[in-house]
């Protein structure tokens, strides 16, 4: 028999209780979460508690399961096991308190809608089934576009926006959702310097208003500058904690260096077994 994959128990146990006595709810608590595609685990026994009111970076190499983690939290993909609590309850129950910013490449930018239409989508939940988008909703969307600095592009068809402007449109949509917890999938990917600064400002503004944002991030150099708290992920949580203590050379080496060889071995063995049957 193969040994179970090596586990770093410290990293996987919740570090904060459901109610830590400070009165602040835990925005997102994940315990023992495993997701697999075709029986190949993508994330394995992931657990963490995110601190409220902070900017959290989720960092790890390609294929570490960062997007999968966010999607599994929001029930977009089935999970093999594990438990997710959003503000102390199931995701379903507190769905309206969560804002999602998907990867920019996940949608078709040729779609016949304007930037304003896309931002107004953030309000659909509040508008409700079968009710039309009204003028005041459009005003709200226009104002959000102004906040991300592209108010003058509201009526452009979205393919006529630059990559950075498209990303700002997505952020404006998240802003009108007025959530308490934001989950963002690589908002900084392939944007210009001005957009990057604008996004950072939006994130800080959210923090000032007491919101929590968990952001998948690729650029290691900017992590200490942008984030308060970091979750280092490579199929499992390698380390998590305040950036100053956790974002160390040693932990990064563990995250990015040497892949999880035992886990690779066991999945490879499983695959061989199956194909020989």
């Amino acid at each position, binding site marked *: 028999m193969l040994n179970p994959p090596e586990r770093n128990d410290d990293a996987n146990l919740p570090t904060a209780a459901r109610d830590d006595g400070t009165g602040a709810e835990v925005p997102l608590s994940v315990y023992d979460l495993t997701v697999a595609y075709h029986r190949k685990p993508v994330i394995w026994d992931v657990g963490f508690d995110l601190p409220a009111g902070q900017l959290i970076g989720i960092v790890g190499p390609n294929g570490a399961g960062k997007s999968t983690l966010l999607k599994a939290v929001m029930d977009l993909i089935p999970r093999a096991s594990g438990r997710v609590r959003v503000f102390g309850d199931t995701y379903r129950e507190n769905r309206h308190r969560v804002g999602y910013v998907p990867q920019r490449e996940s949608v*078709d930018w040729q*779609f*016949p809608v304007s930037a304003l239409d896309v931002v107004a*989508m953030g309000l659909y939940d509040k508008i409700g089934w079968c009710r*039309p988008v009204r003028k005041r909703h459009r005003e709200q969307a226009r104002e959000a576009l102004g906040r991300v600095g592209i108010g003058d592009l509201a009526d452009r068809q979205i393919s006529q926006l630059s990559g950075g402007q498209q990303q700002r449109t997505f952020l404006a949509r998240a802003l009108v959702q007025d959530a308490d917890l934001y989950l963002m999938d690589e908002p900084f990917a392939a944007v210009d310097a001005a957009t990057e600064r604008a996004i950072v400002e939006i994130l800080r503004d959210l923090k000032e208003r007491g919101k929590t944002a968990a952001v998948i991030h690729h650029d290691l150099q900017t992590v200490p500058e942008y984030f308060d708290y970091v979750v280092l992920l490579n199929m499992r949580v390698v380390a998590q904690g305040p950036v100053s203590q956790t974002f160390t050379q040693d932990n990064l080496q563990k995250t990015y260096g040497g892949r999880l060889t035992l886990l690779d071995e066991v999945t490879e063995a499983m695959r061989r077994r199956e194909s020989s049957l």
Partner: protein
Amino acid sequence: MTGEPFVAWIGQMLPLGFSWSWGLDGWIVVIGSLAAVASSLLGNFLVLRKMSMLGDAITHAVLPGIAVAFLLTQTRSSPAMFVGAVIVGLLTAVFTEWIRGAGGVDEGASMGVVFTSLFALGLVILVQTADAVDLDPNCVLYGSIELTPLDTVSVGGRDVPRAAVVLAVVTVVNALFVLLFFKELRLTSFDPALATTMGFSSKWMHYGLMILVSVTAVACFESVGSILVVAMFIVPAAAAYMLTDRLGVMIAISIALAIVSAVLGHVLALSVPAWIGYRSTTTSGMIAVAAGGLFFAAATLGPRHGVLVKLVRRQLLSLRILCDDIVASLFRGEELEQQPPTATWLAGELFASNWSMKTALAMLRRRGEVADQDDRLQLTHVGRERGQRLVRSHRLWEQYLVDRAGSGAERIHDQAERFEHFTDRNLRDELAKETDTPVEDPHGRPIPDES
């Protein structure tokens, strides 16, 4: 009928050489339009969700549903046919998804497997039962819209073709679906993940759409058949997509195109064969051909993706660049105090064709930027200012490329030559600032002031 004089008038104005009867042809056009509108309402979302082929698959795959329902009830007008079609239509969508997920095949292959198998099964059942019952396989494949006005039901004391009633109901249902769920359809089509996190399940929207596609396919069968119905779903919507960048407008255009292709299709079916001495041809076929023609027109002339528009834009741009080059080259000639060149000499210098040189010069003369002196070309005051701006841009770029971008002096000319056409006042000011307001370019030629 009140329409008779109008049609007679059209007949006089256009010698189309066919006869028209409102009782028959009028209904055929109405039924064709209803079928096309009902289909293209949903087709917009099939196109935008990149599921056009799934629409194709479902319209084919519902055949066994129809055949079995027909076998069981022995009538063509039964609700059982709709139920059968919806069941098989949904099975197609589910199977396709399942084979793709479990088998690891791509969606196209998975659809190819599902719908051909189901379609073939339907054909086998049909052919087996066709002898025993009154159902013609040809009808199912190609439709028989010409015969639909003969099968009537009484509505409010009037005889109305049954197909018109059925299609009207389906059209209303589809229109209500699109109107009521416009917002939800837009969201789930554009960003299914976000939609699902907001509680608008994109899966349920998907299956809702598939149910209506199946129902619409059955309703259209009798008129246009199972093969041509997919043209109704996809072609008007795809053409509308070429013509606008707003979803609401796209749907409106697709409805208009659907009606136009139905009317045009029937008129063409009656008239085209008559021109070459035959009797009329199949209307449903001609509707699809007309829709295809409209799509082709949209693809060529459309403002967004139109081939022709792109071509014209490119031509205009290259013409503008040639004008720039003429003016700049005249300016440089003046700088060196050379004799003004002739048009022929300049054309050779700029590698310009005779035709484009003539057009460019005509434009420049009309705008009063270039004047003729005997057979030689000279800049006017306005033209000189334009030339000065261009040469300034060019030399500032050369300076910038050497100074800031670290390019070698031998490569900068070609780049600057390209950039100068797209450099405005603001950009020039910034370039001057970046390069510390130089007075000479890297080749030692003076950089003219801003005019």
